């Protein structure tokens, strides 16, 4: 069982969600996040004064998938989230120790099926 954590452009969320649903792995949690990556800093202006050290708005998607579905999940996100320019985001993969479905108290791989 793996946790896929992807930071993507907000404009790509719908496409990623649709892709995951079509791939049969529709469960995801999203968090609006602000942050900065490796791309060059840029600035905005507010009432004539320059704003530096800006945090860009992104969406963080979290999906818990079985080991079998991992590559499919990653591919779906990659296929749907890229503009090919700096700022597209990152994907991180973690091991998950346990999953529990609250309603039935089912544990393990069954809980995420």
């Amino acid at each position, binding site marked *: 069982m793996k946790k896929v954590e992807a930071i993507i452009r907000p404009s790509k969320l719908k496409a990623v969600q649709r892709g995951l649903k079509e791939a049969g792995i529709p469960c995801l949690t999203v968090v609006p996040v602000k942050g900065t990556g490796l791309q060059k800093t840029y600035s905005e202006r507010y*009432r004539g004064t320059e704003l530096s050290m800006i945090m860009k708005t992104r969406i963080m998607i979290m999906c818990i998938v079985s080991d079998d579905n991992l590559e499919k999940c990653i591919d779906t996100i990659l296929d749907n989230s890229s503009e090919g320019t700096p700022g597209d985001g990152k994907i991180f993969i973690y091991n998950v120790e346990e999953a529990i479905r609250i309603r039935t108290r089912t544990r393990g791989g069954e809980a995420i099926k």
Partner: protein
Amino acid sequence: MQEIAAVAIEQTELISAIDTVWVSICAAIIFLMEGGFALLEAGFVRSKNAMSIIAKVFIDITFGGLAFYAVGFGIAYGASNGWFAFDTGITDGDLGLGLTVSNKLFWFIQLGFAIAAISIVSGAVAERMKVWAYALYVIIFCAIMYPLAANWVWNPNGWLALRGFNDFAGSAAVHAMGGFAALAAAIVLGPRLGKYDQNGDPVAIPGHNLPLAAVGGFILWFGWFGFNPGSTLGAVGNWELIGTIATNTFLASAAGGVSTIFYTYFRYGQIDITMTINGVLAGLVAVTAGCNVVDSGSAIIIGLIAGVLVDMAVLFIDKKRIDDPVGAIAVHGVNGLFGTIAVGLFASENGLFFGGGTDLLATQAIGVFVIGSFSFVVTFIIMKIMKKTIGIRVNRSEESAGIDAVSFGVEAYTTFE
């Protein structure tokens, strides 16, 4: 004979009734401007201080309103020696203004002007002033300071009124008065933490809800159509003038918005929308003094100048290390000053550009200079005294954490549900 007398009585009754409808509607519209101030200021500050600025506007209306009732109105409109009057409450006698509405209704519309003037200050002291010190200042401002300026300008015996000073709805008495008080208060308070970096360069602190600020701007804009036309204090005999005033008020505001849009576009390559809010308001402030005596073309020119002045003033004030989170000094102070002087230039009958010579211009300049300096100096002294005694600024940890949570125990946006 009796019939004629009865008709005459009926006619005065009708005039008063019509004028009362007009003035009470305008007074209510002006009162709504407080909601505009509250939203505009709340939108332009950070969310951690959004409720504290709402509290300040409540204090403007409640403390300021009662102070203006108990003392302020008597000082402004009592029997004046030219500089001040001594009266309390709302007097029953003739105020010498040829009113066709009751003194109480006149008081109510004047209340709108008094609380508008103090609400200008609330924006400039946002995010750092102690609420009780602010409340004390509000009482002093609405009981004594603003009424003195109103006395000079609008009391029939006021020294500026007698000189022919034309400040129709208060570019000087309301806006310059509030704007220069805001300037003094912002100077004594000092900038918000983090407003200037170690080199002293300004750092932008974006407002947390710009659509809210824009809605505040729209409500103020709406309110101005009570503020200026309502200053006729009666509809009977003024119906043509009211049309002129409403049109001039709109034209100047639209021109102010247009010139800000062009100015920011050519300066930065993008239209600055938050500055456009200020540009529209600047046009309104600037035309407030002369909306009854300028023609439509002049109103547009006044607005165009105001829209550029406000942009330059915001940047200038920022560079001078005076922190005005909402642009109150640039909008109300600078354009109150400009608008009052503009009457001397653009008045159709006796303005300098219309062959009227420099008499009116001199009077306008003297008037607004005295009001602006009076407001600045007295506010500066009061703030300095309060700073030494009761303290005017929240402590550092409170300022960092946000005044809402620490002083008021609320947050503007709280729960997850």
